[in-house]
């Protein structure tokens, strides 16, 4: 039971990561491979403040947001104001630079990361048991889901889809494309950073390799397979893809073979989905013109 609860917590956090990347990748059609890096930024800021400076969990969240917004604004403005593929290079750059910093800086715990991070405490209540942590992650997930659903339905969300379908047409309608692209990049990355904070505090262990390029790609995989350009997709895709490797655990395959096999399975899934069902399991509802 404890194990199932733990999986459910992870599922909740990954749903947040998936819907936030969906805003960037699914709604706006921008490739971004630095989502795990932003999750890592959130996780590390929260962890360092809680462990080295004894901040409370809630108090770290505004600072996490500040960090994520600052970094995503800087890189977003720099790369998205130009037409073309530069932002892909920059997102690779963010991913590698952030991960290198986590491994090599003096105060980030090196490649061992941090263990024994305190569980979140809100208004005096400490979320110690797995069940309470699950509830916390569920509330966090539902809040993010609500926020994203509102955003997607708003004129803002519609403009994002317009940019994806035809950038030039959206621009011809007088929309400031760069503004919208940068804005959605900031929003998506900030949500990812918040998810990272919850992840660090609830799981209470982080190391740099949790936030690698492979993880970013895995999150893209979740977006694509669940269904890009809609909210419900994440609710289907994430549980499916997170639960699957746990089944492998019960088969007697040595981990040196099981890990690559799992990756190969994900890779094949992406290829097949892109070829035969690019909209994912749940497709976006399109209104008839």
């Amino acid at each position, binding site marked *: 039971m404890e194990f199932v609860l733990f999986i459910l917590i992870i599922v909740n956090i990954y749903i947040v990561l998936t819907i936030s990347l969906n805003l960037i*990748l699914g709604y706006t*059609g921008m*490739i971004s491979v630095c989502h795990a890096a932003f999750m890592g930024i959130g996780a590390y800021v929260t962890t360092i403040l809680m462990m080295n400076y004894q901040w409370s969990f809630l108090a770290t969240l505004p600072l996490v947001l500040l960090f994520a917004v600052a970094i995503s604004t800087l*890189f977003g403005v*720099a*790369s998205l*104001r*130009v037409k*073309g*593929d*530069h932002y*892909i*290079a*920059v997102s*690779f*750059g963010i991913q*590698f*630079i952030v*991960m*290198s*910093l986590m*491994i*090599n800086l003096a105060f980030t715990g090196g490649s061992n990361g941090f263990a024994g991070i305190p569980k979140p405490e809100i208004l005096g209540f400490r979320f110690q048991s797995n069940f309470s942590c699950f509830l916390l992650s569920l509330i966090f997930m539902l809040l993010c889901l609500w926020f994203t659903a509102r955003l997607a339905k708003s004129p803002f969300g519609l403009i994002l889809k317009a940019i994806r379908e035809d950038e030039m047409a959206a621009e011809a309608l007088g929309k400031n494309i760069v503004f919208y692209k940068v804005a959605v990049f900031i929003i998506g990355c900030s949500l990812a950073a918040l998810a990272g904070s919850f992840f660090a505090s609830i799981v209470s262990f982080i190391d740099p390799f949790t936030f690698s*390029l492979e993880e970013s*790609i895995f999150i*893209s*995989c979740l977006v*694509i397979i669940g269904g890009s350009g809609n909210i419900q997709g994440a609710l289907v895709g994430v549980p499916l893809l997170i639960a699957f490797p746990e089944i492998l655990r019960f088969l007697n395959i040595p981990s*040196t*073979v099981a890990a*690559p*096999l799992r*990756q*190969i399975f*994900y*890779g*094949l*899934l*992406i*290829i097949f989905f*892109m*070829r035969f069902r*690019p909209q994912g399991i749940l497709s976006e509802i399109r209104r008839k013109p």
Partner: protein
Amino acid sequence: MIEQIIVNGVVAGSVYILAGLSFGIIFTTTGVFHFAHAAVYTFGGFTFYQMAIAWKMPFIFSLFAGIVFAALLGVLIERVCYRPLDELQATPVQIFLTAVGLTIVLQNIALLIWKSEPLVVPISQDLLRGRQLGNIRITYFQIITIATVAALWGALHLFMGRSKMGKAIRAFAADPKTSELMGMDTKTLRLWIFFIGSALIGLAAALQIMDFGMDTTTGLSVALLGFIATLIGAGWGLTGIGVISLSLGIIENIGMVVLSSQWKQVILFGIIVLLLVIRPRGLFKTAAR
């Protein structure tokens, strides 16, 4: 001291030139973000290793077999994965994610076959003997590397400028639709582009595995370097891409001496992000693809 660093940089840079040219020739003509270039690199190098060391076949034969294998793998990927997507008029996101999926699958197959330790194809001690020229020390192997790359770069330049196929490739890059209407067999041409690009990256892998050795993750940074050199230098065509790749090799070597080797990735990606901030349209004024 400084001369030695520059010489080392030129040696590292010559492998980067191959990476840049091979990625560039594919990306600037077909527009495919060929992320799976990383896997082609891995398979090229490891096939060479497998034949020369594990199966004890003649050295030169294995070298060529590795390069040919890489070239054929590239062609196979184009035929099986990219061409159907091209016919479906897939979005760039679809093509990019397919390439990512392919990379995951192929890299993990390589991981299952060759494990994660770095492999080296040892070369004869005579080639590794140094030669002192004033302040600099350079091995015969390094001289051979530089000479080979210089010759190939020149040959590719002539090929693209003078030969019929080179002209066809340039016409295709400028306008794929029109070239097809003019009766060019663009599908076969795309296969040839992938053949050339993949053979070049196969050679890069062979040089790397003879000198430093490589593991399954090396390909990723090489392919990314090629992508970045292409983004920055594409305004000047293949010459620009080659020059940028070479400069990146030299700058990286200087940076590693000034700081230390663990900051390699931060230096490289830091330069790229900086460049994109200062000169968003590429280093050379004309608009890149």
